[in-house]
C-alpha cells in the first residue's frame, strides 16, 4: 500500500514538473503510472477471482454465468481506465463515448443472463 501511495505521489510531482515544459510527455507519464499500479495489483486480483471460481464450482453454479460476470468486470475496468485517461487529456467527449461503448457491451454480454431470468419468471407465473 505504501508503495502505491509513494509511486502516485512521486509520479504526481514529476508530472507537475513536466507539465510546465511539455504537456504530452506528462500525459504519457500518467498513463504509464496507471498501468504500473494496475500491474502491481493484478496478482491479488487473480487470487480473488480464483477464489470466486472455486466457490462457484463447489456450489455447482453454471460456469458460463461466472465467466460472463468476470468478463463484465474486465470490460468495466478497461472502459474506466480509458475514459479517465482521455478525460485527463481534456477530451471529455471521447471519454463519454468510451463509457457508452462499455455500457453497451456490458448490456449485450448480460443478454443470456437476462433471458434466463425472464424465462424463469415467466415459467413461475400461473397459466
Amino acid at each position, binding site marked *: 500500500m505504501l508503495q502505491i501511495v509513494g509511486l502516485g505521489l*512521486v509520479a504526481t510531482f514529476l508530472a507537475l514538473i*513536466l507539465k510546465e*515544459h*511539455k504537456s504530452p*510527455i506528462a500525459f504519457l*507519464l500518467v498513463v504509464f503510472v496507471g*498501468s504500473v499500479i494496475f500491474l502491481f495489483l*493484478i496478482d491479488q486480483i487473480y487470487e480473488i477471482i480464483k477464489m470466486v471460481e472455486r466457490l462457484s464450482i463447489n456450489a455447482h453454479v453454471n460456469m458460463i454465468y461466472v465467466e460472463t460476470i468476470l468478463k463484465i468486470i*474486465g470490460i468495466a475496468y478497461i472502459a474506466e481506465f480509458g475514459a479517465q485517461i482521455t478525460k485527463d487529456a481534456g477530451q471529455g467527449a471521447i471519454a463519454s463515448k468510451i463509457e457508452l461503448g462499455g455500457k453497451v457491451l456490458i448490456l449485450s454480454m448480460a443478454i443470456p443472463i437476462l433471458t434466463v431470468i425472464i424465462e424463469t419468471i415467466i415459467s413461475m407465473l400461473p397459466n
Partner: protein
Amino acid sequence: MGIDMNTIFQIAGIGIVVAFLVTVLEQMGKKDYANWVTLIGFIYILFMVASIVEDLFQKIKSVFLFQG
C-alpha cells in the same frame, strides 16, 4: 517495482532534457531541429508506454477470462 520506478524517472528525465534542448535550440534560432527533438523524444517515450499498456491489456485478458 524497482524497474518500474526506474522507468518512471527515465520518462520524467527524458521529458525535462527534451524541454531543455528545445528551449536552447529555439534560442539559437533552429526551430526545425527543435521540432525534430520533440518528436523523437515523444516517440521514444510513446514506445515505452505502449509496451507497458500492451502488457497491461494482456494481463487483463488472461485474468478476466477473455480467451478471444
